[in-house]
């Protein structure tokens, strides 16, 4: 069991990426190596499907992140195997088809097959995952792989736009899915699907959570399955090479949303939002997709919109399902895979052999490609639901179920029935158009000029799919055992057996009516040459999306320009104001709350005034104000150093002799440095500075900031002063200085012994500053022009003087 799973999922996941390298050696032929992966996966999954056994035995686990309780857990139940077989089975056909489609005109074959294999592995992982997080990881991986595949022909603008839309939409909705998963985990305490399916969801207090989770999960499904309002990405993703379109956008990836709905069905079907949410949106998208398909002229766009439509039906179908379960969902899905995959491949053959994609420029290919035309006829009939095909069976069941749903669902049922009828009619029309306008009628000159015969093996997969559509359509009993074996309890209820002929029932009559009406619509379209068929600008959601992205970009640019500040002069006030608000606000709050008053603090502090200190303080303050007040640099420097030296005196008065010593030294050196610096500046610099004054508003702001900072700092000091002294570590240090450090100077012992470390850090800081300064000075080499300018002076150390250089 584990081996089979490993072959099905692990092998393509691990080995697939190496195809990229192999492609360099093998070129085109690498496709045949890649072909082995889907074949092996199909075989492994068939083996798994053939194994009988209870559901619990269908779980395999490998440890992955045990500390988070995330295993690589897989659940191979009927639903997973059904989707898995569709993925790998279509994979076989698509890989085969791609081998003939991607001829020597294309480049990077290795990379293409690596992406395709990765995509298949991710798909299989998603449907087989038992752990919801694992499901999410694979889910996003499919999006990533599809992005790479859509963007494969990235030289084309359309390709890039399509790839970006697909990535953003599916990536974004995928994260919504993650949020939903986390919510489910929050309510149930487990990520394991089998446990969830066994125990169901709790009711009662968690209602709100579950509703939110349902919404998010369903949005994830809508994004992937291109449901309204996300439906626009799918047609644009058709810019990819056709095998990719056939694989990703009709048969498999977009079905993931449907798969998710099927997985969630047993959990959420009883929720009051389930039916309305899925059905209103699903059936609405169904009609919208059909209308858009009718109005399109591009071969692939027609098929893409019809896929949107069919996906809408499938999702709406799960929405209407009864609590006991649904019956024929597998049939609908299988039917869609057969005809849509086949038609995409036919479109691919047509494009491959003519280079034309617009249905209005095509025609008459039936004479050149009779086999393909036959397959096309069968598959178009399947799409239209003509008797004798799986499409007919599907439509019969569809109508039957919808008519049954009329009663229990009231308005919603009538809405659904109306949607299904309208869509069926439109579908007949564009199915007929697709077939007749490609294969019948006169052959336009463009086709004649460009046609080159496609290889026969390229036509084989659509032929096989057509044969299956007609075979199962005529002998539906062949399907029954397989579909019954894969039925899942909770999702399915026992189904009536399929039959070709149910008698002249209401459904049959309706079906006939639909065919007649559809033929009428087709006839009208042909007569008017489909001139009215144009997608109205109001429905161009892709344009809205791009416009939205553009607006978002402009918004962020505006925002960034508003918020960013490029110069210290513009952002220093901002930072200071923030800090002021933070600390000042808190101080004000504390003052207000504690009932203490600033005047009290002041009067308390006033008691300890020492007049000598007050005199010194006054002088320092005067000097500081002098720095602000005077204009000339030299005077300012003098004032500055007066303030510095007086501070030394203040330190002495504060019983801090060590500080005074250090301060004197530092003050002297700083003074020398600053004087040296100013001496290098020409007079003009100082004069130039005075001519430029900031605007008055700015000066006011600066003044306010300066006064507030000063006021805040004074207040803080007073606040500290007013508090009862806490027991200080420093006092202990002072008391122990002799005993522990055998030194009398407590500051020194603190520095060297107790804080020896800081001193090391300090010294290193000085070393670094020196290194930096030296680097700035020594490595300055002036240009000859600068030498000629002379007075800027010799930058000093290590640089030649102008005079020495020039004789």
């Amino acid at each position: 069991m584990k081996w089979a799973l490993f072959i099905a999922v692990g092998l393509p996941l691990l080995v697939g990426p190496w195809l990229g390298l192999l492609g360099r050696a093998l070129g085109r032929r690498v496709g045949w190596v890649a072909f082995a992966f889907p074949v092996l996966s199909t075989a492994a999954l068939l083996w798994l499907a053939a194994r009988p056994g209870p559901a619990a035995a269908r779980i395999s686990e490998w440890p992955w992140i045990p500390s988070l309780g995330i295993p690589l857990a897989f659940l191979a139940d009927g639903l997973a195997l059904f989707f898995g077989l569709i993925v790998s089975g279509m994979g076989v056909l698509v890989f085969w088809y791609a081998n003939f489609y991607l001829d020597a005109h294309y480049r990077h074959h290795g990379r293409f097959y690596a992406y395709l294999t990765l995509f298949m592995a991710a798909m299989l992982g998603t449907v087989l995952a038992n752990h919801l997080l694992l499901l999410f990881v694979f889910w996003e991986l499919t999006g990533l792989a599809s992005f790479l595949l859509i963007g494969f022909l990235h030289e084309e603008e359309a390709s890039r736009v399509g790839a970006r839309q697909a990535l953003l939409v599916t990536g974004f909705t995928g994260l919504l899915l993650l949020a939903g998963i986390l919510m489910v985990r929050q309510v149930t305490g487990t990520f394991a699907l089998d446990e969830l399916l066994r125990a169901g969801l709790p009711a009662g207090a968690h209602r709100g959570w579950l509703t939110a989770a349902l919404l998010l999960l369903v949005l994830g499904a809508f994004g992937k399955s291109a449901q309204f309002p996300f439906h626009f990405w799918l047609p644009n993703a058709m810019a990819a090479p056709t095998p990719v379109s056939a694989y990703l956008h009709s048969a498999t990836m977009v079905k993931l949303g449907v798969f998710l709905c099927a997985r969630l069905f047993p959990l959420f079907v009883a929720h009051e939002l389930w039916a309305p949410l899925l059905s209103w949106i699903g059936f609405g998208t169904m009609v919208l997709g059909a209308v858009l398909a009718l109005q399109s002229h591009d071969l692939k766009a027609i098929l893409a919109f019809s896929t949107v439509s069919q996906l809408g039906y499938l999702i709406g179908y799960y929405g209407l399902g009864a609590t006991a379960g649904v019956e024929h969902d597998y049939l609908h899905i299988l039917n869609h895979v057969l005809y849509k995959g086949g038609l995409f491949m036919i479109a691919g053959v047509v494009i491959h052999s003519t280079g034309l994609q617009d249905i209005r420029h095509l025609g008459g290919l039936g004479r050149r490609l009779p086999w393909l035309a036959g397959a096309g006829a069968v598959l178009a009939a399947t799409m239209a639901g003509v008797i004798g095909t799986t499409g007919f069976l599907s439509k019969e069941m569809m109508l039957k179920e919808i008519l049954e749903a009329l009663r229990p669902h009231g308005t919603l049922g009538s809405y659904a029935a109306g949607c299904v009828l309208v869509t069926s009619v439109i579908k007949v029309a564009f199915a007929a158009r697709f077939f007749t306008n490609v294969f019948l009628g006169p052959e336009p000159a463009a086709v004649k000029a460009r046609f080159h015969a496609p290889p026969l093996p390229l036509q084989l997969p659509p032929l096989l799919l057509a044969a299956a559509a007609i075979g199962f359509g005529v002998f539906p009993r062949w399907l029954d055992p397989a579909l019954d074996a894969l039925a899942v309890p909770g999702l399915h209820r026992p189904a009536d057996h399929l039959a070709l002929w149910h008698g002249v029932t209401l459904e049959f009559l309706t079906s006939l009516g639909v065919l007649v009406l559809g033929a009428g619509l087709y006839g009208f379209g042909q007569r008017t040459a489909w001139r009215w068929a144009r997608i109205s600008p109001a429905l161009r959601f892709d344009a809205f999306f791009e416009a939205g992205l553009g607006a978002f970009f402009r918004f962020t640019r505006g925002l960034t320009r508003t918020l960013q500040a490029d110069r210290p002069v513009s952002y220093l006030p901002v930072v200071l104001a923030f800090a002021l608000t933070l600390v000042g606000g808190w101080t004000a709050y504390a003052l207000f709350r504690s009932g203490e008053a600033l005047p009290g603090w002041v009067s308390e502090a006033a008691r300890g005034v020492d007049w000598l200190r007050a005199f010194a303080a006054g002088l320092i303050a005067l000097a500081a104000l002098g720095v602000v007040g005077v204009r000339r640099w030299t005077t300012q420097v003098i004032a500055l150093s007066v303030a510095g030296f007086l501070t030394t005196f203040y330190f002495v008065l504060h019983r801090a002799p060590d500080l005074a010593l250090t301060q004197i030294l530092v003050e002297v050196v700083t003074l020398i440095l600053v004087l040296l610096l100013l001496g290098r500046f020409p007079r003009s610099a100082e004069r130039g500075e005075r001519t430029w004054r900031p605007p008055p508003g700015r000066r006011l702001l600066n003044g306010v900031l300066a006064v507030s900072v000063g006021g805040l700092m004074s207040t803080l000091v007073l606040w500290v002063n007013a508090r009862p002294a806490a027991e200080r570590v420093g006092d202990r240090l002072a008391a122990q200085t002799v005993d522990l450090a055998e030194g009398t100077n407590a500051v020194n012992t603190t520095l060297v012994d107790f804080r020896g470390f800081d001193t090391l850090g300090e010294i290193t800081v000085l070393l670094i500053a020196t290194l930096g300064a030296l680097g700035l000075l020594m490595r300055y080499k002036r240009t000859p022009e600068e030498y000629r300018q002379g007075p800027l002076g010799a930058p000093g150390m290590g640089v030649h003087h102008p005079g020495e250089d020039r004789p």
Partner: protein
Amino acid sequence: MVNDLAVIGLELAVVFAGLGVLLADLWLPAARRPHLALVTAWVLGLILLASFGIEAEPVRTAFGGMYRLDALALFFKRFFLLAALLVTVVAREFREGFEAGHAEYHALTCFALAGMMLAASAQHFALLFVALELVTVTFYVLVSFPRRRVTALEAGVKYLILGALASAFLVFGIALVYAATGTLAFEALAGRLETFTGNRLVLAGLLLVGAGLGFKLAAVPFQIWAPDVYQGAPFPTTAFLSVGSKATGVVLLLRVLFEAVPSLTARSGPLLSVLAGLTMFYGVLGAIPQRSLRRLMGYSSIANAGFLLVGFATRSTEGVGAVLFYLAGYVFAVLLVFLVATLVWRGAEADEIATLGGLGRRAPALAASLTLGAASLAGIPPLAGFLGKFLLIRAAVLGGAENPALYWLAAITLVAAVVAIYYYFGLVRAVYWGEEAGSASVGPVSRSARAALVACAAGVLGLGVFPGPVLGWARLAARGLGL
């Protein structure tokens, strides 16, 4: 004393490595000096290896309890060593951007590294201040290292002015804390605050300390310097700023919030959540219109500070563990981006993202590496960045049971993560789809750079797919905080 020195052996080794490089530069002939970068890298690598020989249990302290060697400290020391090692490789590739003084650059890297490693062990505000200054002052020099470049000099001035302001905040904060409580040791402070009722003054001090650390972290409202300085600084410095300097802020904030003032942190209400949200959105929205890679990384660094703050806001072991794991993934991804950028631009001043156009054809391996790094930063599964973001969101959701505000935080983190995908995607788009720009080919990639690229790519992938061991370390380290 000797015992103490043994405990800080790793830091001493790093400082001596730095001094050794400086001395060797004096004696070596000029032709052989370029090899010093490799020597530095090897020595740092050896120290990194040696650090794995150190047991986190039992916890050892030095210098009267100022310095503490526990699992958290060890985790960050290894992190810083790894970052410095990779930065040295980047600096070696960037050598054309420096006029001279390559050895000085590596020595300064070592000094900054020593400061970071000391910070990781800080148990005392004095050590916190000195370690932080050591880091900050070194960065003043590192930012303006390409001295011929006006942009670098300007960035140096800007960083210095704001850095000094931040240091001033820090000192004032520390002073107020001391005035209010009479102690600067974290453990003693925690003990005193529990029984301390009139702690409004302490809070004023802590707000100032928080502002000082907020600068390091580049968190709102002290984020404003980041884009400018990142853009002006040379590539290796920018990389080191966004990894090392930020992580220094992270570890110090962890120590202060959860070791020094746990009782106040527990009552801080939604403050951290609000800051996290604002920081994230400032970063992601600001990053979108950027055209310069370093400026983009500056905004991205702000956004990542916001993501990291989410883990702080949960105030849980889960959250802190997620922060540590996120950082581990972050270092590989960021260095991957900067390595590739350095290899492409080779010390040139320009870093317009548009000039990366056509890199996918010119140098597919480099393009793939850059894509990997950007994808991890964007949080694409199954890479390290995804798991990091997931763990953060998970921690927020788990914490939501007690504090429902965290649910909202988890939700907006998710939204911010989505927006973040958009601008990293812009980077990848330029690489693969951009107009062919610039020179036809990228120069040869040296062996050391290749090794670093492989190591980073392996880190980004490995942490995402097999996160077990690193996650184990991260959680062990987080548990040490006793949340």
